[in-house]
Each structure stands twice: as structure tokens, then as C-alpha cells.
């Protein structure tokens, strides 16, 4: 009996625990090491698929769906969108065959929303988030609901729907528990400041950024602080102050951390400032500095074409504010919607 046991594969519970660990590892690595996250996710999917066949249990099917959804998430971050969409479609199929766990459906819905956002379907992403939020609301999961509402707010702000973004943020602050999810609170704060800036409440936005930056400086991470300072500099410029030095610091900080797309946007803010003051030599110099940033792999083709048009315009010494403004709007929106095409008016 003992030898028979030794020859059998590890107990189902142990392999299920291994699978859960692989899923957790995939999530843990996804931003620092997307390829590693894909590997962990693939291994989790293989294990979960075998367990689902062997166990004939809805919970095992749920685990398979979860593994597929996190694999899709890792593939999304690794920019393999076709693979991500395939994995997410399989995850959806498996969910339908599983236990009907509402919380899992909502979580997969959140991951699907990220994929929809990054593949140019922000309206689908908002819908997926809304459904996930409805589930969390019914289940009384305040922290999850708050996080989803913040994600909605950020997405809506990026596609230019400020009123709906503010409404999502208002709802988020009603349910968020700052001690449980400080990161969502900070994301919501930054988004609110951005919305206020967008609709012209610059004084309030500047105050908010100042207060949030003080908190992040004490407790937060460098990238969050850089993003806040970036927004703060844009608001100061809108208020008629000089934000050049701060923008340059932010650009350098973003580049140090490989956040090239953001750095390109900061360059555009600098260029806009120079153009407003007719600082043409600075504009030409900036155009030369910007090119290596633009040709980075992180800038997708359509955005690159638009940036090259800008570089050529700037190198002639023309300070075309309208073009800068159009390009900035395009770059902000095309980050989440790669179907967008740039057409300068």
C-alpha cells in the first residue's frame, strides 16, 4: 500500500496549492518581469487544466479559469495582445463551466477590462468594470468596489469624459478605506487633480497635488511621486508659473526608470512651454533630444509617426502650438487606444 502511494502523483490538494502559488507568482512578477509572469502563468494553466480533468469538480474548473485570466494579464503586460485575447476567451469559457463564483467572475472582469483598455476598446473596458463593480457592491466588498471605481475614473478621465470620471471618483471615495487600500486612494486623488485641472479648477488641483505629494514623499514610491510632480508642474504652468525645471526633473526621473512613453509626454509639455514663450532655440534643441526617446520600442508606430512629424516641424523653428496640443491629446488617448490615427489639422 505504501509503495502504491509513493508511485502516485502528488495529492490533488498539493498540486492545487502549487497552481495557486504559480498564479500568485505570475501576478507578483507581472510589472517587473512580464516574460517571467507569462512563464509562471503558462505553468499554472497546464497544472490547472490537468487538475480540472482529474478532479471533475467545479472548483477545479474555476481554478483553470483563474489561471487563464492571469496568464492573459501577463501576456497583456508583455504586449502579446493576440495571445492575451486567446487566453482571456478560454478563461471566459471555463468560467461558464465552473461553479458560478461571482467574485471570481468580477475579478476576471477586471482583468478583461485591462485587456480591453489596452487593445483599444475603452468603452468595453468601462462596461466590464461596471459589471465587476456591480458584483462587488452586491457582495458588500467595499475595497474591491472602491478599486474598480477608481479604475473606471482613471479610464474615463483618459478618454476625456471628465464628468463621468468625477462621478466614479465620488462613488469610490464613499467606499474606499484608505488604510486598506492607500494606493487606490492615491490613484483617485491624482485622477481628481487631473480632472480639476482639465475643467479649470487649477488652484484646487494644485493644492490637492501638493497635499498628495507630501503623503507620497513620506510613505510612497518614487514613480507615483514623479507622476504627481509632473501633474503639479502642468498645473503651475496653467497658473502662469514656471514649471520648466520641475518638468525636466520629472522627465529625467521617468527615463531613469524606463517609463519612455511618459517621458515623451513630458517632452511635449516642455515643448509647449517653449513654444508659448517663442523660445525657438530651446525648441530645436529639445527636438534633437527627443528623438532617441521617441524611437524607443515602447512608442507604438502610429505615435512614432506623429512624433516624427512634430520633430520635423520643430526643427524648422516653427512653434506650432496647435500641433503640440493635438499631438499631446493623441498620445494620451492612443496609449489606451492603439487604433487611433493621428491627423494634424
Amino acid at each position, binding site marked *: 500500500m505504501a509503495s502504491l502511494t509513493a508511485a502516485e502523483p502528488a495529492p490533488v490538494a498539493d498540486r492545487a496549492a502549487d497552481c495557486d502559488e504559480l498564479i500568485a507568482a505570475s501576478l507578483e512578477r507581472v510589472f517587473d518581469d512580464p516574460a517571467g509572469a507569462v512563464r509562471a502563468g503558462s505553468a499554472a494553466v497546464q497544472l490547472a487544466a490537468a487538475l480540472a480533468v482529474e478532479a471533475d469538480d467545479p472548483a477545479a474548473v474555476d481554478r483553470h479559469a483563474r489561471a487563464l485570466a492571469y496568464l492573459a494579464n501577463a501576456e497583456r503586460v508583455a504586449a502579446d495582445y493576440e495571445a492575451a485575447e486567446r487566453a482571456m476567451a478560454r478563461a471566459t469559457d471555463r468560467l461558464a463551466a465552473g461553479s458560478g463564483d461571482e467574485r471570481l467572475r468580477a475579478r476576471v472582469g477586471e482583468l478583461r*477590462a485591462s485587456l480591453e483598455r489596452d487593445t483599444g476598446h475603452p468603452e468595453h473596458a468601462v462596461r466590464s468594470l461596471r459589471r465587476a463593480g456591480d458584483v462587488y457592491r452586491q457582495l458588500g466588498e467595499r475595497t474591491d468596489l472602491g478599486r474598480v471605481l477608481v479604475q473606471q475614473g482613471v479610464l474615463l478621465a483618459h478618454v476625456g469624459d471628465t464628468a463621468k470620471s468625477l462621478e466614479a471618483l465620488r462613488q469610490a471615495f464613499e467606499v474606499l478605506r484608505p488604510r486598506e487600500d492607500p494606493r487606490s*486612494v492615491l490613484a483617485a486623488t491624482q485622477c481628481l487633480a487631473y480632472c480639476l485641472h482639465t475643467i479649470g479648477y487649477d488652484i484646487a488641483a494644485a493644492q490637492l497635488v501638493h497635499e498628495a505629494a507630501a503623503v507620497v514623499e*513620506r*510613505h510612497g514610491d518614487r514613480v507615483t511621486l514623479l507622476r504627481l510632480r509632473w501633474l503639479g508642474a502642468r498645473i503651475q504652468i496653467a*497658473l502662469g508659473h514656471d514649471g520648466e525645471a520641475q518638468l525636466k526633473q520629472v522627465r529625467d526621473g521617468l527615463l531613469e526608470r524606463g517609463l519612455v512613453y511618459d517621458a515623451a509626454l513630458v517632452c511635449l509639455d516642455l515643448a509647449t512651454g517653449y513654444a508659448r514663450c517663442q523660445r525657438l532655440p530651446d525648441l530645436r534643441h529639445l527636438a534633437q533630444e527627443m528623438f532617441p526617446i521617441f524611437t524607443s520600442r515602447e512608442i507604438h508606430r502610429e505615435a512614432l509617426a506623429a512624433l516624427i512629424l512634430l520633430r520635423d516641424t520643430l526643427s524648422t523653428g516653427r512653434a506650432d502650438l496647435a500641433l503640440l496640443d493635438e499631438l499631446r491629446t493623441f498620445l494620451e488617448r492612443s496609449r489606451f487606444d492603439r487604433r487611433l490615427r493621428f491627423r494634424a489639422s
Partner: protein
Amino acid sequence: MSAAAPAGGLERAVGRAIAEELGRRGLTAPQVERRLALPGGSLQALLAGRGALELELLRRLLTYLDLEPSVFFARLLSGAPDGESSAAAAPQLARQQVAGLLEQVRRALLEIDAEAGTRLASRPEF
């Protein structure tokens, strides 16, 4: 200038800007009057553009609202009063939400600040 006399352009603009700031913070004129021990109705008159603008009152208001005078006037004189022209184009919903939201955010930030921030370093899932 008597209290009944019409206020000048700058006074009206300051009154509007202060009214905006109060609105954003969810404050009413009587509340602020009580807080600053001002004569009843004096702030309301200023906000409505009916009263004379007194520097001491403005200084106390800006201090109370934690507004830098240079920032306040830079915005006022730029030709685009903060929250006036551009916010007018924004949906009414946005205007109504701002005051309450700011209050909620400040409370949340204070709560985070009071807590050790170790969890801020964790990665977002989204």
C-alpha cells in the same frame, strides 16, 4: 463706497473667486462668518458683489482658505478665473461634486498619513 453701492470689476471678480473656493470646500458664507467672527452678512455681501473689498478681510479669508495670495491673484488676473470660464463649460455635475470630493480626499490622505505607509509600495493589480 457704501455697502449698497455697486462693487467694481475687481471686487466682483474677487467675490466670485472666493465664492468658488467656498463652494469647492462645501462651506457656506454664514459658516465662514461665524468661524472668522465677521459681522453677519458681511461675507455674503462681498460674494454677491455688493460690499466694499477690504484688504484685511481678504487676507483673513485667504489665510482661512489656505490660499496663497500670489496664486489667487495670478489666476484672477490671467483673464480666466479659476473655475469660471472653463468650468462653466463643464457639466453641472462636476461643479457640484468638487467640494464634497475635496473634503473626502483630504480626510483619506490624512488617514493614510497617520498610518505607516508600508503598503503603498505594493504593486497595483490593474
